[in-house]
């Protein structure tokens, strides 16, 4: 698998896939997409990078252990249900904030943070499985 | 249409139950996978089959126009698929590890936790 062409193209391909996964994540509120499918795309990007350049390179590139990424996502998703406590609404009721940034109205909402949490959970858990399997192959 | 689907689901269950009764762990796993798919089809059919438009609200409207397909079974199936996928992955790894450690994938021969010929507890006081 470690041909010159693949090894040269893999970092660019992986970067492009991660970028695309974030695009899919953000458009997910009203259109097809979302955290789960975005997370799968990002995890497959890490898997491709791992096949081409070795698991150690991926682990260096993502800095944190995949399970920690997963845990952070779970934490964020859990927290995103809480803001409605302060508005007298039940758990997980969506809250919206409209932030004006550089002349553009950016809608921020708790479903967005929930989706980012899901994204991180999926990225973390799937890539930790994929990396563990790739590691075993190399022994 | 529902009747045809019911027969198909019945066939899925038949195959799944047959495989689940096998002694070979790999076959049991295949049975679990087919069982999961049978359930998904079952939920899909319970939500009634309609040739209607997908439940997406057009851009300018607040509520969908006309009849739409039932979105709830699809949400339920999505949940069930994710769960059965993760269970299947876990079972696959577990069976592989068990095969490595125990040296068999025959469920009848897996007697490490419950050894045959255990002695009875001490009698009398």
């Amino acid at each position: 698998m470690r041909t010159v062409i693949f090894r040269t193209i893999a970092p660019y391909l992986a970067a492009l896939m991660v970028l695309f996964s974030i695009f899919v994540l953000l458009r997910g509120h009203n259109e097809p997409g979302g955290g789960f499918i975005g997370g799968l795309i990002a995890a497959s990007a890490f898997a491709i990078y791992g096949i081409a350049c070795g698991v150690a390179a991926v682990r260096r590139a993502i800095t944190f252990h995949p399970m920690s990424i997963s845990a952070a996502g779970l934490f964020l998703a859990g927290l995103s249900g809480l803001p409605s406590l302060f508005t007298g609404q039940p758990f997980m009721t969506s809250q919206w904030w409209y932030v004006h940034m550089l002349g553009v109205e950016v809608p921020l909402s708790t479903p967005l943070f929930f989706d980012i949490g899901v994204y991180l959970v999926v990225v973390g858990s799937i890539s930790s499985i994929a990396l563990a399997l790739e590691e075993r192959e190399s022994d | 249409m529902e009747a045809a689907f019911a027969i198909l689901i019945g066939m899925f269950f038949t195959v799944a139950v047959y495989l689940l009764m096998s002694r070979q762990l790999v076959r049991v796993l295949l049975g679990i996978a087919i069982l999961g798919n049978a359930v998904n089809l079952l939920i899909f059919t319970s939500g009634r089959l309609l040739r209607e438009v997908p439940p997406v609200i057009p851009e300018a409207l607040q509520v969908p126009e006309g009849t739409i397909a039932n979105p709830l079974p699809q949400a339920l199936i999505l949940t069930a698929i994710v769960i059965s996928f993760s269970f299947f992955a876990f079972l696959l790894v577990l069976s592989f590890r068990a095969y490595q450690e125990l040296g068999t994938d025959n469920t009848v021969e897996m007697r490490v936790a419950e050894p045959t010929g255990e002695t009875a507890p001490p009698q009398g006081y």
Partner: protein
Amino acid sequence: MAASDYSVDLSQAMRMDAVPPGDWLMIAPLVITILGGALCLMARKNTDSQPKIAIIFLTLLVLACAGLLARVLDKGVLTMVAGNWLPPFGIAFTVDAMGATLALTSSIVALAAAVFGINDIDSSGRRYGFYPFLLLLMTGVCGAFLTGDIFNLYVWFEVLLISSFGLLVLGNERAQLDGAVKYALLNIIATTLFLIATGLLYGILGTLNMADIARKTASSGVDGPLMTVAVLYFLAFAMKAAAFPVNFWLPASYHTPRIVVAAVFAGLLTKVGVYALLRIFGLLMPEARLVLSDLIAVVAIATMLTGVIGALAQTDLRRLLGYLVISGIGSMLAGLAMGTGPAMAGAIFYAVHSILVMTALYMTAGVMRGLGGSYSLRELGGLYRASPLLAAAFLMLAFAVSGLPPFSGFWPKVLLVDAALRDGHGWIAGAILLTGLLTTIAVGRVWIYAFWRGGAEGTADGQLTASLAVPREVGGAAVWMPIALLLGLVVIIGLQPEFMMQVAQRGASTLVEPLGYLRSVFGDIVQ
């Protein structure tokens, strides 16, 4: 776009009134365990801080569940619908006295296990995630007790199942893998049966909200298709609860993991199955319970007797206790079979008692192993001299599990036997009393062999074996505190049963007379 911009009348789809902050206690158990589990997972390399995080969050969980129970006793059944969608469309959390009591008992047991785990789980076990799995297991257990939506119940079952897989294989020994294969396969088949039944139920009634199902079955009656669903539910949850013909996964797996994991499993997992049976046949389909009551009674008696006879035949202490778990399930099912208010109250009370006493017994077994070096009744002996305190603790728990006064096991059996005699089910009462007698023999024999006799098999009576002259390390406060906590509750409930009696009767009255439950979900429109 703010909500007010919509031209649609939202009051037709949403609850518009504000939710009092106290109602958030319904969600608090889930939020606390998820956040705590995530924090423990992030601290995976820092194995010293994990127990601290877990104990802090589980203490919060106990407080939240206690607050929830107080609120339910004060205000009646509580409902919160996620996202404010009007039931039956939103996912509802509906908490009655039964759910809140069981959640509180489970969280106390989980706290005890987290403390016990400080000693029992080494740093490699912590890196493999004992504490995160324990917290996420509690997410599943509490979610199952508190939810008011049957598909949501399925999801919580899966959450607790996948966490239990992680706990079960912690350590990766040969026997564990063998036990885990059987546990995993049979439990997955059981949850799949649950899902099949739920799919069919949705096809028949077109709803998944428990209160809505109860309302619809009450008005339409139970016909052929609904009976099929009821029987499927009975099979699925009987498998989960390890009832008689489908109990074989429990003795095959519960003795394989670390003892603290076995303690948590013995306390919690089967009771979640019993809870689901009580909820479905008590609240959702009372008519189906009437039709099936003879079958349930036969299954209950067979479960009691096979459990206790199995316990009599075991040499391994952990397997003996596993069979006692099964035997206890039979008593709870007997309450369900009779179905009257006092009988259901007995079943709920018995579940609380069984959660506390089985966990404490497994933990005590762990200490006995630490002192005597084995779980085998043949190799244990002379422990009374090694630790009289432990001997006393085990004897009290043995009395409690057999249903002898003055401990917690006595009162639920009184309720059940009394209900059986009142309804003319003398044979159920007889079976419960016979099971109590046989249980006394089984655990009494453990006490006599492990504690009272001088040494292991082969040593002359009255002499100490060399290995016991120097007792092994049994750990300090981390081992004794959880056992003392659970034992204290067993004794207090035994001496002062009024509070538990009242709570169990409140829980049972919601099942027998579900109007309060329905009104909590749908408001006063329900007649």
